[in-house]
């Protein structure tokens, strides 16, 4: 299993029956592949649909039905079209049960930076600030390190996405839960030891008792 699949599978276990979930572009979008249809989960694409379905077969794509990345999608039975005002009303109003986003940095306060690298990458925040501010639960799905540097840091050096503490971080090495006291290590990736995680992390981790391996359906 590659790192991305591992992360996606673990995040999928956070999703409960009947939830409304928004998956970010890239790694987070893989999560949908591991959520059983029987759960009756609805996925929101913030560009305007609740009840996002799989990619349509070749030749059956419709230019009026796309996800937030501009890719063709389908709609499940019971889907609803929403305009951008309703879409972000649902997000900011706490009606979105969970958002899964990528991250550039998360720090000991649980603050997320994921939208800007000053001087390098200024794409705009899109919906990220609203999602992190408003969603009932915010899960960050990301590689533990990038180019050898820990993405989990004492204090974000990149611009924050919101002042809200995220609820969970899932990486290829660990599951970490930010709390008022700091970052609590909850799970290890299969075969990964505590020392490995500590060495790969540029922040203090709170370790309480035995840390179990991630369960992956």
């Amino acid at each position, binding site marked *: 299993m590659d790192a991305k699949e591992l992360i996606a599978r673990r995040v999928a276990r956070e999703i409960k029956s009947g939830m409304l979930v928004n998956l970010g572009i890239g790694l987070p979008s893989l999560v949908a592949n591991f959520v059983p249809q029987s759960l009756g989960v609805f996925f929101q694409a913030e560009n305007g*649909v609740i009840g996002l379905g799989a990619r349509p077969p070749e030749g059956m794509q419709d230019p009026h039905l796309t996800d937030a990345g501009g890719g063709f999608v389908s709609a499940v039975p019971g889907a609803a079209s929403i305009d951008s005002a309703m879409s972000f009303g649902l997000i900011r*109003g706490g009606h979105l049960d969970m958002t899964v986003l990528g991250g550039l940095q998360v720090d000991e306060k649980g603050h997320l930076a994921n939208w800007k690298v000053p001087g390098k990458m200024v794409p705009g925040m899109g919906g990220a600030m609203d999602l992190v501010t408003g969603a009932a639960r915010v899960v960050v799905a990301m590689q533990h390190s990038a180019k050898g540097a820990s993405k989990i840091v004492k204090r974000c050096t990149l611009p924050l996405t919101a002042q809200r503490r995220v609820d969970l971080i899932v990486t290829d090495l660990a599951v970490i839960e930010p709390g008022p006291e700091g970052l609590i290590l909850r799970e290890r990736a299969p075969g990964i030891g505590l020392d490995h995680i500590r060495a790969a992390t540029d922040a203090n981790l709170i370790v309480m008792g035995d840390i179990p391996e991630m369960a992956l359906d």
Partner: protein
Amino acid sequence: MKGALKPEAAAEMIPDGASLLIGGFMAVGSPERLIDAMVERGTKDLTVIANDTAMPGKGTGKLISAGMVSRVIASHIGLNPETQAKMIAGEISCELVPQGTLVERIRAGGMGLGGVLTPTGIGTEVEDGKQVIEVEGNRYLLETPIKADFALIGAWQADYVGNLAYLLTAHNFNPVMALAGKVVIAEPESIVPVGVIAPDAVKTPGVLVDHLLIRPN
């Protein structure tokens, strides 16, 4: 998927002292079967937030007549002499709010906004005691958001995902109120199989609705 409740079962969920957003305009679009069940049960000390208190024998007017309401937030009570009489007798406290302000306050509550900046009411007694905010040289009243314990919604069609569609002037406050109740109970005129309401016809996405009332008969 949401199971459908009998009106009695829905009425039982609403305790004494609850705050209720109730859809309808002069009872058009109000959840009448649910209101009847509430009257049967005789819940007390309710706060009713609605455009109006209809008239005796109709919609929210039935709750007024039954002495179940201690507080009303509405834009108009003039067509229900019982509300007026109970207000004058001190049995009901009334907050009267301009109609456009009322609907925006509920929308703000439901969509996670901090309030409404409106020119309506500036220079009138509606301004009394409120903060006035100047934006780009114009003065606006800051009106606070409204949420409630329950939103009681009258709809035309529902499916078992909870998606709602409305007919003509029976929309009124219903789509906005469905955003702002901690628990949302919808009373549709009919329930159709999932997939029958086209995504573009859904005005209230099912993710907002907690309970449906069973079909009449």
